[in-house]
């Protein structure tokens, strides 16, 4: 069906087998790594993965460390599998650069919905090549190459960050609500007081501010975000 290649990094062998069986029916090819080191090696190998499912608690190298090292070179979408009840974990995960998170144990429908949203979004990106490149001030975004430059410096953005930025730039000067971002980028409705969008925007701001002093994304408290158009 979809023929997407996923990498699952989780130390629960039985669980990974079940997950593999479950997802293969939906048409995904699943590779499994049962510890963090192996997972990182596989993720950074020549094999292309469309999505990485990354558990937090891992032997040898924990999930955050894997993500941190992965992000130094790869922007593969990552769905963190956090332990239920550890809110701190998901915030940390998003901060390091996870695209989304899901608390274990989860409903299987929830899982396939999240995977679908992330994979589809990534799949959609190349088809965006017909779209024009966006250029606002010193920030340039190219949907075809998935490249963003700020003051001629290329930025390393995760898939989610890229999509958030794209959405904000397309609607520059206008208010984009958090719910819009969540639905269009993460493929799910924004839960009450969910901070993941804020985390992604905050990561974006951090990366943009490395090369540009001026404030680009304005927070409209309680409502959403707005990409500011340069006044000069």
């Amino acid at each position: 069906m979809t023929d997407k290649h996923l990498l699952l990094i989780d130390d629960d062998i039985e669980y990974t087998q079940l997950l593999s069986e479950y997802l293969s029916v939906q048409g995904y090819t699943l590779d499994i790594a049962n510890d963090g080191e192996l997972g990182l090696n596989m993720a950074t190998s020549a094999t292309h993965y469309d999505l990485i499912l990354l558990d937090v608690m891992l032997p040898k190298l924990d999930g955050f460390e894997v993500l941190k090292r992965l992000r130094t070179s790869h922007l593969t979408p990552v769905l963190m599998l956090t332990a239920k009840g550890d809110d701190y974990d998901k915030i940390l995960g998003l901060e390091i650069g996870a695209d989304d998170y899901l608390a274990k144990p989860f409903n299987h429908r929830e899982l396939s919905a999240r995977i679908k949203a992330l994979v589809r979004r990534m799949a959609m990106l190349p088809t965006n090549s017909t779209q024009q490149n966006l250029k606002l001030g010193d920030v340039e975004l190219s949907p075809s190459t998935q490249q963003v430059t700020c003051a001629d410096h290329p930025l390393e953005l995760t898939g989610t960050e890229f999509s958030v930025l794209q959405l904000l730039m397309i609607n520059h000067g206008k208010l984009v609500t958090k719910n819009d971002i969540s639905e269009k980028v993460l493929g799910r409705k924004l839960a009450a007081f969910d901070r993941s969008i804020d985390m992604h925007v905050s990561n974006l701001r951090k990366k943009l501010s490395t090369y540009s002093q001026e404030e680009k994304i304005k927070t409209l408290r309680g409502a959403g975000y707005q990409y500011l158009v340069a006044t000069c």
Partner: protein
Amino acid sequence: MLVLKRINPAQSLFLRVFLWFILAIFLVSAASIFMVRALDSGAKYRPVKPEQKRELNQLTRKFQTQINKGRHESLSRLAQQFSKRSRARIVLVDPVENTLVSAGNRRITPIEPLLVEFAIDSPVIALYARGMRFVGPSTVMENGKTYLLFESHPVPGGFQRLIREEYPGLFIALFILVSAGVCYLLVRSLLKPITQLQKASKAMASGDLTARVGSASERSDQIGQLGRDFNLMAEKVELLVNGQKRLLGDISHELRSPLARLQLSIGIALQHAQNSDEQDTSALVRIEKEANQIEAMIAQVLMLSRLDSGQAVLSRQLITLDEVLQPIIEDAKFEAEQKSKSLIYNKQNGLTDLRLYVDPQLFSSALENIIRNAIHYCQGQVLVEVTQEENGLVFKIKDDGSGMEETQLARIFEPFYRASNARDRNSGGVGLGLAIASRAIAQHQGKLSAKNRKVGGLEVNLTLPLNLEEDMA
């Protein structure tokens, strides 16, 4: 108020012990003074020194000379005048009548019985009494009559005696003051460890399991022993209670893995069922529903255990009251309508833009729990009121249900507590909602309490202090 309470002897051990001590000291002192007075006139006889004797003889000669001049009205008057001119006072005794010649002197009169004891042939001696020294007797003659003469000096350094004798009121006051001070120190040293013990027990009773007796447990006496035993007991209790809480958390933690596998297996089974055109998946759907229920329970137990162990990290932010409350009220109204009940929301004017410094997720889920609980147990109507009061923002959630037994009221915030013993599963919860809510509110320095309404039904009050922001900043 506190001071009044502290000195009320009926309530304060301190004052009672203090009063008993001071009473005892006072009685003992009074008794010993009385006995000393009764047994001892207070007079001391000492051998006379040669220079004292010389001085007496000189004085006697001078006085005799004055008498011999014969210009005096009376002997006592002459003695008075003479005393004023010389350094020493002269006291004359009539050995025949056994009386003082110069009577009426307030300071001399009490010693009269001692002085009249002397006879003409008594040896010269020094008599110390009442802060004075009497040297005598020597004799003077007037008109052929012999009088005994004593020379009297105030004894130097008799200040304290002077006070005692001249101002007995002041002396008693001084005495009480000093002994009260000593008593105070004594009682304090006795009761301080007891107060420490009492504070520790109280803290422990109110849920602070880390409460310990401090310095009092280092004493080597019985109170110290009691303090050490208390600490030992507190340690055991803390260990037990925490162990139990941790166990609950750990079990839930461990349950997550099999549950995750179970949920996936259900998913796989459902996929198979769909692929093989199996018509009846109702059993699987049912299993899935139960698995989701377990998942929700585990999430709640874990939340509770984290709040209990203080591991929960509050991510507080400034948020307006409306931002927190509006979505909850809307959801609750919808839920109430589904159950053919209604929810009325009243907000005091001017609170719309009031900013709260809370963890929005934790706080709103606490509030939501309380409101949903009220919707569940009400007959037809739930009233939510928000007012700003002196001690903070007060949320009142009133339902018109059957209320609770007074004895059960405090228990509704305990984990796994349910009003009815029949575990009615359709309510969805496991009896953890209010327990989580009360702990979440406590983490916000707020308070949650419940009482029965006069008109019937339950009223839950949530008080959230408003100066939180300043505290944290």
